[in-house]
């Protein structure tokens, strides 16, 4: 069994978690081009090596960030997203 440490719930079976994709900064939807927005949605770094990615503990809906080696599957560190993101994103409709 592969274990992952949830910053909120402690060590759990990795099957309790949902992978949520690479940590990438979101471009400003109101200002960026369609190209940039598509790249943000679909294009991946898909790095072989150490990466930062979003994970969620499903039962508690708690999102956090993990540093993981995608070659060895070693989970190096998990931490609350507040270490990287201090502000809530304000979603306002873009002016057409």
């Amino acid at each position, binding site marked *: *069994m592969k274990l992952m440490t949830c910053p909120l719930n402690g060590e759990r079976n990795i099957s309790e978690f949902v992978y949520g994709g690479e940590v990438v900064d979101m471009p400003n939807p109101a200002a960026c081009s369609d190209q940039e927005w*598509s790249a943000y949605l*679909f*294009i*991946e*770094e*898909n790095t*072989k090596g150490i990466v930062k990615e979003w994970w969620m503990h499903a039962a508690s809906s708690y999102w956090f960030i993990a540093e993981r080696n995608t070659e060895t*599957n070693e989970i190096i560190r998990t931490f609350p997203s507040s270490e990287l993101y201090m502000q809530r994103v304000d979603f306002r409709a873009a002016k057409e």
Partner: protein
Amino acid sequence: MPLSLLKYGLTKQPKLQRHFPPTPELKNSYDVVIVGGGGHGLAAAYYLAKNWGITNVAVLEKSYLAGGNTARNTTIVRSNYLTPEGVQFYDESVKLFQNLSNELDYNILYSERGHLTLAHTDAAVRTARWRAEVNKHLGVDSELIYPDEIARLCPQLNLGDDVRYPILGALYHPPGALARHDGVAWGYARRAAEYGVEIHTQTEVTGFDIEKGKVVGVKTNRGNIQCGKVLQAVAGMSSEVARMADFKLPIKTIPLQACVSEAVKPFLDPIIVSGSLHVYVSQSSRGELVMGASAEAYPLYSTRSTLEFKEELMMHLLEMFPFVGKLRVLRQWAGMTDMTPDFSPVMGLTPIENYYIDAGWGTWGFKATPVCGKRMAETIATGKIPDLIKPFELERFYRNEQVGERGAASVGH
């Protein structure tokens, strides 16, 4: 002992024929360099030579030939997809497959079994119906069938309602088939080599020379070469190789596992897939049950095998075929698949001039080996993208024109 046997034993053995020549020295320059010696790269090499007379071609493979996903897949060939683009594309491949042993004069053990995608919920019945209608409209043999007909095609299947997910119906695709995966790669390699294509194993591509947005050379662990054009066909390594040429792809590298049982007498004719139970099974020509599931839950550049995979798989398989509980698992393995968000491939041009891509084959690319080889060869030779593969270009992600095949490709590979 019969005398003839004794005589045979004492005479000199006939000289064994090599399948393809040993790796030659690298030349300074090739018209086309193909990165990746899996089925896709080798098929493209064959069609470049045969259909377009382009023979100054090198296939560069970092390991032994066709030891990647080509060697690891569960060899299901079918065209019962969901989108018109997908159905037409895979249908051409099925037709090429049906004649491939003849074309290559090489037995690929093509075996038409019929393919059943079981539906255990109303939603799955609806998807099956949808696929059947799209298929029939495009001339592909598919229909929605119900338990009486399923029992006729596969009497071993547990059709009772004493299980968690009783079977309500199935999408039946008579042309669904299996083939010898290695045979496909070796057959293409052998015939390509006869045309003069060079096959270089143990030759890893480590970078590219790009001048003013155009690829002009390839760097390898055996030295640098110049090239006219490059075709990248490296499956799970797609993102890493593309990074060497400085562009990105909508691909995640995710392991897919499979296993086989010990060999038993033939009893299972059709290929059985259950999307709801996340499991599929067929019986190989030498009697093993070949079993698999959907790709794993998160990216990993590794081909390790896990106990969790087997546990999940067996739990569901036992609902369908309770008696397989008596069988032992013989081998288990994994491949690194190049998964796209819409479960369709990425074929065609890249931001780099003269650099072509054949990627995003995820868990479904073995069946596309012939059509992709043929159409990528056409693209490279003519510089024009054939209509058949146009919908699959990388640019579709920037136009929001995905070719959504999840409903037809996430478990049934």
